[in-house]
């Protein structure tokens, strides 16, 4: 659960903001984002294969919003032509790639803001252990560095993280246990 919890804590409010922008109401947005995270949980085995987690989550959010709009459209289909138009505007906005890029860039910026003060290698090691769920020895293999170096990077990461992500720090102690 801890990796998922961290993911949730990092992304929830940001995806909620984006979904609210797409759908117009916070209530709809909450339901959509919950569903996104539930899907993540169900597909947890695939998480390690994702290269860009922000892009992945953003895409999932967009698809979930489109699904919801489709449902709304079916509901109002015969009742009001005017609302259908309004949904069409929302729909094309979600699908607009230029607009998506603007939003996603900001999302990515906000997520990395907290961790970009880390030294590059340290950050990579940290992200690998955090989001890809790799064991420290596996990270060492993938990055062609010694396990001790991975350990050092993670403990450095912890030192830096405390300034930025104090509340997540405790979760990482569990990772230390698994070295």
């Amino acid at each position: 659960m801890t990796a998922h919890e961290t993911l949730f804590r990092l992304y929830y409010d940001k995806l909620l903001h984006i979904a609210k922008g797409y759908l117009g109401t916070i209530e709809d947005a909450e339901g959509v984002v919950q569903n996104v995270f539930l899907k993540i949980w169900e597909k947890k085995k695939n998480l390690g294969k994702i290269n860009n987690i922000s892009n992945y989550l953003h895409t999932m959010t967009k698809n979930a919003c489109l699904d919801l709009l489709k449902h709304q459209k079916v509901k109002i289909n015969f009742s009001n032509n005017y609302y259908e138009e309004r949904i069409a505007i929302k729909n094309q906005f979600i699908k607009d790639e230029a607009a998506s890029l603007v939003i996603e860039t900001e999302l990515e910026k906000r997520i990395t803001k907290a961790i970009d003060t880390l030294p590059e290698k340290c950050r990579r090691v940290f992200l690998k252990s955090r989001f890809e769920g790799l064991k420290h020895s596996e990270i060492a293999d993938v990055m062609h560095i010694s396990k001790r170096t991975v350990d050092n990077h993670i403990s450095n990461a912890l030192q830096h993280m405390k300034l930025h992500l104090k509340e997540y720090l405790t979760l990482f102690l569990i990772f230390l246990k698994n070295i």
Partner: protein
Amino acid sequence: METKKALKYIKGTASEKEVREIETWINASRDHAKKFNLLKAEYIASTFDETINTADTNQELFKYKANIEKSSKNKTKNLRLSILKYAAIFIVILGSSYLIVSGNFLGNNFEIPKDAITLELENGETKIIQEDGTAQFVDSKGNTIVTQKGNKLNYNNNISNTEKLVYNTLTVPYGKRFNIVLSDNTHVTLNAGTSLKYPVKFIKGHNREVHINGEAFFDVTKDKDRPFVVKSSGLNVRVLGTKFNVSNYPEDISTKTVLVEGSVSLYQEEIYKPKEATLLTPGHLASLNKSNKTIALEKVDVSLYTSWIYGTISFKHEPFKNILKKLERQYDIVIKCESKELNETFFTASFDNTSLEYILKTFRNNYDIKFSVDDSTNKKTITINP
């Protein structure tokens, strides 16, 4: 398009007339739509803080966990029956306010030191158990009922059948752990600050009932005719044959049961009614809230709740004050922390068989806390300052 008007539309503050104007404009051409989209995207990108500051992430995380619970429940439904066939392993953590009264336990007997492991016999006599010694205890008829070898008590299965339940109580003080083998060959490991009351011999046709205060890991011998019931204030855990952990510490707001494998039933009433009991599935934690008596289920890493048997100290999202209480028990020390803020801060951590000093240093290195150690009193006292 007027940017100002479009922004009003995006913010949702435009009048109905303005809304129509803007929408007509957007729908007029692909180019218009693109311009509008970029403006809206930039607006969304620049207003993240609005949602971030108002979102209740903790509340939503709670919902998320409940959703996961629901979803994995549906999946395990089909598995449940097949799992039931196998010997089960599970853990129970129960809460009560026992430790507060545990002093009375030794109260009548002034010569018993507080740091001794004690065994209370059926006649009320309290024996001190030396961890490195061997001993035998006999009943009123002179039969050997239990033998002690080192840190294990072994109850004799062969004593003559009795019709009456006779109870013994084993109490383990702070800083120690102890093992016991009951007359049905059920193995129990008691954690520091724990007391277990159990019949010297289980009687035919009766449930096997024991009472726990503190924390213990059970490896119950299978006997489908005589369910094993672990009783604690407010909660009963019923099993046929399985391994589980029971904890019952006063600082925990809930009574917790964790299942590693198999299946157990939890019930709060005096009498077991299958329909009203909560069935626990593997890998899940059931928390009975002591104040409102509701049981919540969540998926957990079970090793967090069992690793203490091997000397590991784990806490999952626990307030600092509770962690200090656990450390006090584990190391038989006194820890003082005056900082209210720090006491209410939640931590998750796990330490393998380490010294107290290492644990304190880990906290010091990651948070700005200071601590001082006072060895001059008869109990080591540690004072923590933020």
